[in-house]
């Protein structure tokens, strides 16, 4: 019961989902399933949110290192919950969408959440630079090719790419750096992307089949794996 039922559920649902693709009357099944998923995910939130609270309360109680910051996290979490669930300050009252402009929830979102999010995202600019400094080194043939492709594209994105190769006559304009960059994006890059995508498709088929057929069952707490 403990081990067989989940395997049977996975098998049945998996098979139904595969074949519903070909059976018009089952067209809506995909939406129904994603609806179920959404509902299950909300219930699971009790577990996740509960876990978050438990960890920080524990930190506080035991005065673990950096427990002060746990107060901040807990405070932020609870304020958002209260603001959103009770719709505090919502100009439309309790019936309005929780994200109505002017509601406390949305105000915090705009003035605290958004700057944090875009700054975190902007960190990428720095990491792109440090990664290319370290990674693009001609250690072997593969790495050299990686380096050259990246360099040509980078050069093609600056005015210098054009200036360096402006002397090349119009009839050979293909060899000008910006055009070479376009060509690389269009041909070899496309080829690589396609090979990767076909591979991914096949990999998904094989893994999904292993899951559906119950060959892969570690996630179900199978002890024999």
């Amino acid at each position, binding site marked *: 019961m403990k081990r067989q039922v989940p395997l049977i559920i996975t098998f049945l649902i998996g098979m139904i989902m595969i074949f519903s693709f070909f059976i018009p009357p089952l067209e809506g099944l995909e939406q129904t399933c994603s609806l179920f998923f959404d509902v299950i995910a909300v219930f*699971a939130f009790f*577990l996740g949110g509960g*876990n978050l609270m438990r960890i920080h309360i524990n930190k506080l109680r035991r005065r673990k290192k950096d427990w002060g910051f746990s107060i901040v996290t807990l405070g932020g979490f609870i304020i958002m919950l209260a603001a959103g669930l009770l719709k505090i300050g919502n100009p439309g009252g309790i019936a309005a969408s929780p994200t109505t402009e002017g509601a406390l929830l949305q105000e915090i979102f705009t003035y605290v959440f958004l700057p944090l999010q875009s700054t975190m995202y902007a960190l990428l600019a720095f990491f792109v630079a440090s*990664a*290319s400094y370290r990674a693009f080194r001609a250690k072997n043939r593969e790495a050299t090719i990686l380096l050259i492709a990246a360099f040509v594209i980078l050069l093609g994105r600056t005015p210098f790419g054009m200036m360096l190769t402006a002397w090349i006559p119009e009839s050979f304009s293909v060899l000008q750096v910006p055009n070479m960059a376009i060509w690389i994006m269009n041909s070899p890059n496309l080829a690589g992307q396609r090979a990767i995508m076909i591979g991914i498709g096949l990999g*998904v*088929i094989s*893994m999904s089949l*292993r899951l559906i057929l119950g060959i*892969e069952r570690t996630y179900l707490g199978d002890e024999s794996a």
Partner: protein
Amino acid sequence: MPSHPTTSRPSHPAMLLILFTFFLLPCIVLAQTEVGQTNIEGTPIVPDSEQIVAAPVTSLIAADHKYDDGEMIELSWVPSIDDQLVDGKVIGYKVYRLEDDGEPQMITELAPGSNAYNDQSVERGKLYSYFVSALSSNAETPSVRTAPIEPQREWLNYELLNVLIMALVLGGAVIYFIETARRGKKLFVRKIAGLEAVDEAIGRATEMGRPILFIPGILDMDDVQTLAALTILGRIARIIADYDTKIFMPVSRSLVMTAGRETIKASYQAAGRPDAYSDDMVTYITDEQFGYVAAVDGIMVRERPATVFLLGAFFAESLILAETGNSVGAIQIAGTARPAQLPFFIAACDFTLIGEELFAASAYLSGEPKQMGSLKGQDVGKAIAMAAILIGILTVTIGDSWDVEWIQNITTGLTEIFSTK
């Protein structure tokens, strides 16, 4: 008005030929469709002398849309002869529908030049007939009505038959090799560098006495890459349990937290060390992408893991995580099926599982013959893809220049096999 039952073959003969010869699978299926058709030309309403009257549309056909749940009727017609771009009298068309012989209702208005419309507001079990009016600036000329037609439900989408057959061929190949391997036939699988390194990476963490960080991507359980990450986690956690090293897995989804705990717990039980497992190994942080990244970055610099696994679905955060992991000197094994993020992992991590390798990883790590068999099945898919690309490009290139019919037929056949409509 008589209706002509017409038969239509969903597949091109050349496609069938190739399917037979290539895959030896039968697929002659005939689908029957009811077609209601007018064969009497419409007669215009007797015109006023002042009125500009356009000729009616002709050959109005209402047919059931094939291979659906009975939700659509397709209309097509030949536009009025007065529908011209220059000095045309027609300024548009109105489509009318009669439900179960009731009153005509206008369902849509179309631009001049239109010759088709799909009525998607129909229900099974009702009869519909249609007519189309050609509009001039001050008059309307209706066409003849179609015979009543009922939208039909079909039980199999024959348009996707080729997809079904190809999927069965591939699935069959995977299952065949799983079975072959189960029966004890030795199958060769080449080394995958990133996975060969797993043992060493875990061993390193043990030696250094530092934890292992496992990041399963930022998507939920409804993404297949997360599933792949969890299957790999199962294998890795087993080795970790044997080594008695610490694993820490911060996640951004509650469901992944639950599934992750279940997986690690099982691995520890399998290793015979259930007492060493604790729920605290897996922690939920936040569903928000960059909030999660901010916390994981913090964990990385504070806990200084010796080994970081980044496996699953990653977006822009891939590089932020990989660079921070690198800065604390961790060995990093990454893998994703998102082509856009692979370059960043390649640049910043020690080993990267590229696309397909991510999905093959758990089978590879398990070392079980039947799991390895499934990898061989995947290769059959690659062989078919390569053959199709080779044959397709050759025939389309040659057929284009020399006009040889049978070569062109192969091209068309191949295109149909791999079309997804």
